[in-house]
């Protein structure tokens, strides 16, 4: 039986999510055994022509060229899975969506007229049909393997969309928020394994909003922990600011 062909594509991103695939280390041989890595420029210059059975898409769409290129990716892919906050929500670069991108280019580049960029950073789903979205900044490698194993064997991946709190409780971490440390865990999508609270840090919301977030209620608690209006605006304005519940909550605070 022919091995399924896997492609890994990059749009506007830092490459951290594709690196999660290389970071699989012990499991990497199993991945290479289960699929033919047909297109993965981050790892190899060898290219096997499409179409591809599974495409992993990293990054957001920020240029007219990428908006076009994404359609060619979709046309060549039986299953298209987005990986990471850029691809699912627009990433940190979606902060441009609320500002004038021309002002940025003029401030940053000596010749801004060379820059051909869109006014917004948008997720992959804003342009083409997406079969599955894997959250995280970066994604969790165990979840990536789970999603690949699920798709290769035609079952639903186990990537629960409940809060990070459930993961803290499973590993036995005493709630940091109740101990006075600001934390976005209650409104954040599970998947990282609740790493930060295990080290006495609050959750930064890297995995984006959980299934039914109640950010206004959490913000009242964060304010009681000492966060000011500007802090509240910024804490929701990170990698997943493109997701509506975070964007709306950020907009409720500030100045």
């Amino acid at each position, binding site marked *: 039986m022919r091995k399924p062909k896997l492609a890994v594509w990059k749009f506007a991103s830092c490459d951290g999510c594709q690196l999660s695939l290389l970071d699989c280390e012990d499991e990497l041989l199993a991945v290479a055994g289960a699929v033919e890595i047909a297109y993965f420029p981050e790892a190899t210059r060898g290219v096997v022509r499409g179409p591809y059975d599974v495409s992993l898409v990293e990054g957001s769409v920020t240029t007219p060229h990428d908006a076009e290129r994404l359609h060619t990716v979709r046309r060549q892919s039986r299953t298209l899975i987005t990986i990471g906050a850029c691809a699912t929500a627009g990433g940190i670069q979606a902060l441009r969506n609320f500002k004038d991108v021309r002002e940025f280019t003029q401030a940053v580049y000596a010749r801004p007229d060379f820059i051909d960029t869109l006014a917004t950073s948008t997720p992959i789903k804003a342009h083409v049909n997406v079969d599955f979205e894997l959250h995280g900044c970066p994604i969790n490698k165990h979840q990536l393997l789970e999603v690949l*194993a699920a798709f290769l064997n035609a079952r639903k991946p186990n990537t629960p969309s409940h809060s990070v*709190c459930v993961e803290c409780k499973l590993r036995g971490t*005493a709630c940091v928020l*109740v*101990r*006075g440390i600001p934390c976005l865990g209650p*409104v954040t999508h599970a998947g990282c394994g609740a790493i930060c609270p295990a080290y006495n840090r609050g959750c930064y919301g890297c995995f984006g909003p959980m299934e039914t977030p109640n950010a206004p*209620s*959490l913000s009242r608690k964060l304010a009681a922990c000492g966060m000011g209006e500007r802090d509240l605006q910024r804490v929701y304005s990170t990698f997943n600011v493109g997701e509506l519940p975070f964007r709306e909550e950020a907009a409720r605070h500030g100045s």
Partner: protein
Amino acid sequence: MNDHAAAVITHEGLGGLIAGLRAEGFRVIGPRLRDQAIVYDDIESVADLPAGWTDEQEGGHYRVRRREDAALFGYNVGPHAWKRFLHPPLLRLWRAERSADGMTVTATSEPAERYAFLAVRSCELHAIAIQDRVFLQGPYVDPHYKARREGAFIVAVNCGQAGGTCFCTSMNTGPKAEEGFDLSLTELLGDRHEFLVEVGSERGAALLAAVPHRPAERQDAAQAANAVARAEGNMGRHMRSDDVRELLLANLEHPRWDDVAERCLTCGNCTMVCPTCFCTAVEDENDLAGNAAERKRRWDSCFTMDFSYIHGGSVRSSGRSRYRQWMTHKLANWVDQFGTSGCVGCGRCITWCPVGIDITEEVRAIRGEGGSDGRA
């Protein structure tokens, strides 16, 4: 209860109890200070116990504080419950591997080790008794719970103080441990730091006999009774519970459910810390090549969307419906299902709710006593 007279032990005797349990092959679990909280973890000696520490608890608020004395059990219940050990958060049920002539399924073998729980509070004994009814006394016995529960040795501790969110007196579950233990301790703080020991089983008596102890005198018993009376007198919360089942079931459309939904994060923390909540999800996984598969069971919560997912969507999609489901099950429908309330008044759901939603306050509001919370 039994014919064994109460005794008094010192730190040395307590150390002997721990050593004796370990020598008998028990894995001793008890209170330890970790990450600024008093959690349940492995105990090797008296030195592991949180001497001189207590906790400050309110709705959505927990801090450990230094005590002025060296009390070993001078705190109230913390973020962990014993269900963590009897009903583990994550459990592999079986593993299957493809073989030449089909498939081989191997069930996970139950652990051979036996637990000894040190410093189980009265509310927690009641919580264990409730999970016993759920897992052992119904038509379907849970073999995983049974394997861990049977043979577990329980050393109870009577509370000498109540926490800010405690309301065991309202639920008739404490603070005095009445049954369900092998030994029960009451810490006697004073010039002589000692522990009154009551015996609840023959094996408890045998363990006590093997450590240095003296017979309890009248003033020891009086001091212990005073400690328990002190706890009884400073409950942080109160909740009228005799009619709460009827009250809730008659108010399923009360506007208070909308009010609580506005605050509820639907994060699931209350269910995870509750010592009686027992729901689980089952997940199947397979390897990349499709040659091996596993079935796992993990704690689930009625606050997740997956919990009530059926074809077409989640039945309880609003925060209002999920909070109402949890509270009416805990305080009302549990009675019909299992014969007792599902609440033991430990206060964990109040303390560990990040936004401090208070079940006693919600009951008061539905009762029409709005404006005042459940604070004593």
